């Protein structure tokens, strides 16, 4: 075994494979940095080139790309508060506040070291358990997966704001959004407006496909942050000078929290190992783990470095874990590994049980590629951390048009449909108000991510097991205990927050009408869900109706608290009341309008044309840059978009103009 392990290393580092590996790493860095592009998109870009390649080089290139995405996606998460890919959702929570404090370089390098460690941890675990992992994976039946999903939901308590009920309402709303599309148990279309519109209406067709994860993830986090930054018309970093020697501090932070890193790496690999629960909630679980297990966690959410280190360790270690079921059973454990498997088949390598017996050398090639790529990726990222952090000192209004274009593009890339943009706008506006009234957006995200798992596994568990049978399964029982502990820690954290809040002076919330309106809208969404799913089969409606009932109940409780509480009660929260009086703040609706104005323009002249003009006009009129700078910037954006359109075989949404005249690529 050791001999095979060593000879695989030699194969990787000698000859052309190392060059392909570095090529993969470079592509992975770029793909990770662009929001909305993750390993899934990056690997699918590589697939056409992989066909016909020599297997070791092909594997090296794909692994190179896949293993650095979870490292480089931290850049946008920390610098602009937009997750670069799914695995950086939780990094935003504390990474972005750190950037605001002028500590972007510190946050980034701590993240990269953690990520490097996580990646190597995954590789080691993969080597150690690939031959014995079968019984572990098979011990996780649907009952255990259900409990894992419930455990995922239980962390909401530890992450939500001051009012637990607001967090629960948000989680319910997330689950309702997750219900959109085909129901897992009865294969019926739900919440797609087919009750009011005809089935072939574009909106109904779009919603029938379900809402893509990145559409929700980007709009819920990025939209409110950008609107806020635009309003204050400042740079991301509140300090003009960035703190010095950022990456050394980052390394120290990493070393100081080595046990946290180790624990979170284990969580990541372990959950990644189990196919079916998906990688998207791992970040939140390890973020919550970090928050509940460290001392002095009051600062979590406002820029605690440990809130970056935890999720970053797990987000990269999960790939090593996810590779185990992929190679062992041909059952991918994450979105990235699913495409990797397609690529392996194109290379003539068939993942499956026989691989462990007959092609162990190829497995070791994969493991070494994972390890070597991680080292390359981390070195490059650490080197870039400081120069790129300078971006946070630029006035945000200048950056905004580029970011808005990038975000709209990333959203559109989810399913490449108008619906992506439309729905993201809806969620984005909702998110602005959720932030304003302190409804946890994280809770919505977690609810959304786990909605499908909970429904599917609940239904399947009930079919596969008798109730008493479940309680004889040790892993099931352990998971119940962990969930109970997680809920308990959540309550503890909220109580602690209350004490702190009471010791501080209360802000008097004078205007409460906007909060009432928002509560009514949320209640209405709950009622609406119940009404439009009532005609479905029992298996199709039971989940959305239950969630709807919970949501209405929680809304009612909040309503009662608001009605009987005085305006200083913690249930009231309106960030607007804190800012009124400051003159330099721009109007909220105006900034929202700026955000969606390129979309309005697109309706007429198509997405591609409108984005360039938007950049030019915005820079010239609002950021007050000169004409030459604005026009050159617009042209650069056009070039960037055409390059991507060419390489990704992608058409941009056409407008009315395009439906009348046939325009040449890329205008048409």
């Amino acid at each position, binding site marked *: 075994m050791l001999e095979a392990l060593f000879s695989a290393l030699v194969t990787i580092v000698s000859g052309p494979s190392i060059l392909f590996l570095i090529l993969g790493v470079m592509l992975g860095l770029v793909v990770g940095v662009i929001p909305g592009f993750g390993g899934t998109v990056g690997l699918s870009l590589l697939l056409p080139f992989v066909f016909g390649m020599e297997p070791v080089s092909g594997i090296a290139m794909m692994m190179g790309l896949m293993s650095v995405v979870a490292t480089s996606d931290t850049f946008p998460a920390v610098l602009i508060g937009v997750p670069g890919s799914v695995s950086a959702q939780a990094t935003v929570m504390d990474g972005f506040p750190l950037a605001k404090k002028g500590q972007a370089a510190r946050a980034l390098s701590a993240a990269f070291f953690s990520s490097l460690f996580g990646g190597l941890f995954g590789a080691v675990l993969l080597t150690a358990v690939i031959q014995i992992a079968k019984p572990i994976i098979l011990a996780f039946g649907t009952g255990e997966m259900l409990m894992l999903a419930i455990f995922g939901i239980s962390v909401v308590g530890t992450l939500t704001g001051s009012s637990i009920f607001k967090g629960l309402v948000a989680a319910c709303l997330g689950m309702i959004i997750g219900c959109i599309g*085909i129901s897992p148990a009865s*294969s019926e279309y739900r919440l797609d407006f087919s009750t009011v519109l005809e089935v072939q209406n574009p909106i109904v*067709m*779009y919603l*029938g496909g379900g809402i893509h994860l990145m559409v929700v993830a980007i709009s819920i986090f990025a939209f409110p942050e950008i609107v806020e930054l635009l309003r204050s018309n400042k740079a991301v970093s509140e300090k003009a000078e960035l703190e010095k020697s950022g990456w050394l501090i980052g390394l120290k932070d990493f070393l100081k929290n080595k046990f946290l890193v180790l624990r979170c790496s284990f969580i990541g690999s372990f959950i990644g190992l189990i196919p*079916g629960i998906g990688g998207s909630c791992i970040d939140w679980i390890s973020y919550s783990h970090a928050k509940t297990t460290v001392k002095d966690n009051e600062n979590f959410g406002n820029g605690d470095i440990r809130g970056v280190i935890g999720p970053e360790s797990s987000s990269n270690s999960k790939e090593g874990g996810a590779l185990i079921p992929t190679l062992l059973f041909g059952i991918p454990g994450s979105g990235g590994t*699913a495409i990797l498997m397609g690529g392996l088949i*194109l290379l003539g390598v068939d993942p499956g049980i026989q691989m462990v017996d007959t092609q162990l050398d190829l497995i070791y090639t994969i493991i070494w590629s994972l390890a070597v790529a991680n080292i390359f990726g981390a070195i490059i990222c650490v080197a870039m951390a400081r120069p790129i952090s300078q971006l946070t000192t630029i006035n945000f209004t200048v950056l905004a048009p580029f970011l808005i274009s990038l975000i709209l593009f990333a959203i559109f890339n989810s399913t490449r*449909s108008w619906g992506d943009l439309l729905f993201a706008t809806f969620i984005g506006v909702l998110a602005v108000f959720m932030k304003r009234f302190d409804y946890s957006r994280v809770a919505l995200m977690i609810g959304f991510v786990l909605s499908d798992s909970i429904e599917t596994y609940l239904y399947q568990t009930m079919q596969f097991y008798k109730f008493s049978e479940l309680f004889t399964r040790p892993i099931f029982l352990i998971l119940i205990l962990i969930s109970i502990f997680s809920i308990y820690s959540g309550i503890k954290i909220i109580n602690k927050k209350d004490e702190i809040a009471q010791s501080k002076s209360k802000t008097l919330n004078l205007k409460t009408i906007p909060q009432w309106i928002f509560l009514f809208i949320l209640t209405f969404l709950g009622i609406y869900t119940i009404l439009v799913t009532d005609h479905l089969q029992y298996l199709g409606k039971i989940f959305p109706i239950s969630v709807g009932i919970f949501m209405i109940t929680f809304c009612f409780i909040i309503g009662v608290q608001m009605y009987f509480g005085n305006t200083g009660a913690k249930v009231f929260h309106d960030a607007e009341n804190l800012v009124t009086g400051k003159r330099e703040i721009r109007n909220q609706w105006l900034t929202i309008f700026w955000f969606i104005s390129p979309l309005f323009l697109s309706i007429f002249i198509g997405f591609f044309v409108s984005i360039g003009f938007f950049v030019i006009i915005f820079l010239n009129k609002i950021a007050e840059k000169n004409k030459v700078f604005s026009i050159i910037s617009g042209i650069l954006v056009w070039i960037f978009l055409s390059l991507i359109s060419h390489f990704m075989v992608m058409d941009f949404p056409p407008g009315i103009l395009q439906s009348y005249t046939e325009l040449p690529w890329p205008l048409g």
Partner: protein
Amino acid sequence: MFKKILATVVASLITISSALAVDYSGKTVTIWIPFKAGGGSDTWARAIGPAFSKNLPGNPTVVVKNVTDGKAIGASNKYFAEHGKDKDGSVVFGTSGSVQLPFIFKDERVRYQYKNMVPIFASGTGGVAYVRKDMGVTDIIKDFDKLKGSKLVYGSQGKTSLDAVPILAFDMLGLDVNVVYGMKGRKAGRAAILRGETTIDYQTTASYLKHVKPLVEKGEMVAVMTWGAPIDGKVARDPNFPDLPSFPEVYEAVTGNKFKGTEAKSWTALFYAGFATQKYVMLPKSAKRDVVKAWQDAAAAIVNDPEAMKVLNKKLGKYDQVTGSKNLKSSLKKATSVDSKSEKFLQEWKNTK
């Protein structure tokens, strides 16, 4: 005599002009795949893409475009909305069973019509049903009572997916199978039977050979039957598995009835749409005749390309690749049409639990 010469001249002129007319040199040709990257249809398209590039006049660059807007149905509708009237064949459509089956089940979202398409190339596959060893079944026909008396649980993606073929087959055999829905793909179904939560499952041929056959050899699972393969217009024993009976064989042996009638016809239609000719490359009917010919000729050449065939066989199992206008037309008809009786039967069957 003069007429003959004239006819020859005209015919050869037409051949020359048509050969001249279709030339993709320096152009890009797109295979529109209504599925996401990395999946079965995508891998299939990426395997035949270079082969088409090699064999089409002018050797165009062939790219695969994954369209997922509105899932398989929506993306297929979109193809016809945008390219349904194309003449030059620069964007071809790649289908799969998940595009054919909603059409057969008359899903109201379907807006595409197979009669508006010209098939260019078709790839088939097969499927193998297997059970867990602890059931004690070794031969489905001899041990049928044992199978019938066992606790049968099947993990399914949904009744109107490819799973319609096994579920209807179980129904026709009179097996009382508890079908548990919500599986995300056949892979999840396989994971469930490995864990012992389900007891009966099927996999397509390629996946069976890779993932289940080793288990059968180890004695953990037992293969019981295949869905069969189309041979001379009938569903016969699958040549990839000469020792396993096909479903129609099992049906006749177990029930004592001939494999005839509405149920059998409906099942056969589903089998053709989902397995026998599962994946098609198609052009819209509006494409010029010589464009269609150029593509069909290229498809015929691919079958003789060992490298492309290697990947296809690996992906789908060793099955016939259908080429040639006549064969394609008859197979597409089988894969996409049902008589009114079967249609009525399928609609009713869909709505029973």
